[in-house]
């Protein structure tokens, strides 16, 4: 059964010149225990989608969805408070720039202990304080912070970015979530610490069977850690499928371009030659193209692209394009992948 099932979620922004559709009918489903990647350029609405799921968007954003199920419960039927209570219990989120997501004037220990729900503690109120402290230390150990005394008694600005992200993960784990949404958890981090954070998330996924929604702009890096990937472009759903399908047999011209622009998939390219890129840049919110928003940049665009394409499903590989790259490119792609594997 799907853990999270979202169908046609739209997010609109109130601007002086009317409402802008920032996220246009995106569907997303997450199965129990899987790591799903959500890929897109910056500004493609992936962070918005994540924040809409957990319900922390500001008032100026308006969210609509055709279906929003969480473990079989129809969340659209619940009131806002009930929905928030349910989601905050089961879903946790970690953000980019962890240092700014921790209250600068509160000790780490305090911020951690307030995330621990009272229902997790047993015993009388005079025992609670000690239990809370033990739970905090346990959480810090879980995320690989050994010097817990030092960490509890410091302020966020006294710690490094990576430690702060670990603390954020610890805070997220405090609620014993079923789904963890990680919104670019390693942005602006060194690659070694990036690896550590991703390994920690992968461990949590395997040991605790915690599902993870991993949001990133880096498709190549994401493929190491995810089971399935959803690609977004400029607030529109592009393609979803298993990691192999997306990386080896992309059907959408945009995903194709994403894969082509990464070095790993292009090992056969002669050295010092240019990587393939799409011309132009992601459209701004005020001037969104109609229909498929990739249209102006798409190498395969034709007249029918001014109408938004429907999502078509090829054996679990969903793609939203009028002219998907079907078999012939798929074959070529797999051949090329074999060749690159042979080289490695």
């Amino acid at each position: 059964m799907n853990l999270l099932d979202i169908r046609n979620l739209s997010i609109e922004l109130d601007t002086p010149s009317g409402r802008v559709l920032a996220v246009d009918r995106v569907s997303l489903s997450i199965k129990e225990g899987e790591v799903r990647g959500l890929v897109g350029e910056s500004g493609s609405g992936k962070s918005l989608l994540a924040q809409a799921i957990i319900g922390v968007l500001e008032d100026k954003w308006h969210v609509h969805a055709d279906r929003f199920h969480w473990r079989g419960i129809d969340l659209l039927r619940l009131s806002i408070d009930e929905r928030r209570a349910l989601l905050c219990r089961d879903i946790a989120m970690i953000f980019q720039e962890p240092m700014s997501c921790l209250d600068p004037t509160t000790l780490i220990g305090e911020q951690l202990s307030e995330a621990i729900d009272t229902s997790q503690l047993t015993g009388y109120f005079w025992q609670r304080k000690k239990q809370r402290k033990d739970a905090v230390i346990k959480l810090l150990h879980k995320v690989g912070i050994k010097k817990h005394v030092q960490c509890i008694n410091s302020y966020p600005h006294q710690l490094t970015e990576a430690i702060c992200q670990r603390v954020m993960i610890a805070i997220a784990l405090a609620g014993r979530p079923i789904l963890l949404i990680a919104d670019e958890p390693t942005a602006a981090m060194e690659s070694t610490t990036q690896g550590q954070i991703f390994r920690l998330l992968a461990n949590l996924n395997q040991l605790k069977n915690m599902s993870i929604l991993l949001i990133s702009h880096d498709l190549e890096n994401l493929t190491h850690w995810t089971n399935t990937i959803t690609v977004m472009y400029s607030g529109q759903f592009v393609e979803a499928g298993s990691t192999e399908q997306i990386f080896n047999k992309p059907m959408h011209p945009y995903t194709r371009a994403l894969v082509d622009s990464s070095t790993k998939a292009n090992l056969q390219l002669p050295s010092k030659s240019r990587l393939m890129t799409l011309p132009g840049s992601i459209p701004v919110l005020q001037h969104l193209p109609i229909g498929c928003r990739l249209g102006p940049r798409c190498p395969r665009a034709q007249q029918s692209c001014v109408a938004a394409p429907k999502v078509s499903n090829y054996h679990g590989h969903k793609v939203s394009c009028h002219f998907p790259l079907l078999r012939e490119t798929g074959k070529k792609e797999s051949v090329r992948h074999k060749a690159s594997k042979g080289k490695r």
Partner: protein
Amino acid sequence: MLTFTLRRLSLFIFTMLVLTLLSFSLSFLFPGDTVINHSGQINASAAELAHLNQVYQMDKSIFYQYGAYLTHILNGDFGQSMASQSPISNEIIKLLPATIELSLVALLIAMLVGIPLGFIAAIRHNKTSDNVILSLAMLGYSIPVFWLGLLAILVFSIGLGWLPSAGQISLLFEIEFVTGIQFFDILLSDSPYKWQAFRDASAHMILPACVIALAPATIFIRLSRASMIDVLAASYIRAARAKGLSFQQIIFRHAIRNALIQIIRHVGLQFANLVTIAMVTEVIFSWPGIGRWLIDSIYQRDYTAIQSGLLVLSCFIFIVHILTDFIYAALNPLARGNKHGS
């Protein structure tokens, strides 16, 4: 923390040095003999004048003169008042506590009223209550204090007869002068009418303190509203919401502390403004404080008193500044500790 204290202390010393330089130069700029402006002895005989010239080292270069002036001030000798021919230091000791009391009570009222109102406005941003609070703040800020003081007397003292219009305490109560701060003196005294005196002093305090507090309170409303809006938009508040904290928990545990830190800095700055307002209000309410005394001295061309009043008041304001800096550092962990490269 030691470095922080030392830095503030050195700042204090140098600012005070500049201030004494200013008040020293005033003696030359005021009409009349410099040594008489220094000492305030207008009726000095020839022998006394010669003695004064020697004491203030008027025959030597200006650096020696400044040194002599500084020594006098450091010894607590501000000279005599030209108007009353009594030592200024005695008058200041008598009058300054009343001003401190009044302005601190006014500051307290302004903060207790202004900051929560600003927070409420920020939490209900762009709603009716926000607009009402903001327009009230605008209105309050635009009312001139001398007019408001007279109006308050007209309504509450003459019209309704609720509160006394002038003075610090009714003449019926005889309170011994100990600290100069009326409330402490009343509590320290062993008069059988202690509590009646306390109530009477409070009644005298309410009107002038509220009049003084109005303008700073409106500034605090706007400051706290702006900083609360900033804080509520910060990503750690969003993270706290994602953590599952309730709105009250977020406001009381995270938002208020962070917003207060930004306001505390401005409290020190607003205090100078508040003391200026207090000086005008003291005249209106016949409050026996240093502000009224200073304004009287200006009318009487009491140059010695103007000089030393200036010095003492600015010293007082500066001390409050430093105190708010310390409170800021105590509340804000980012300001504490050693910073490198800043």
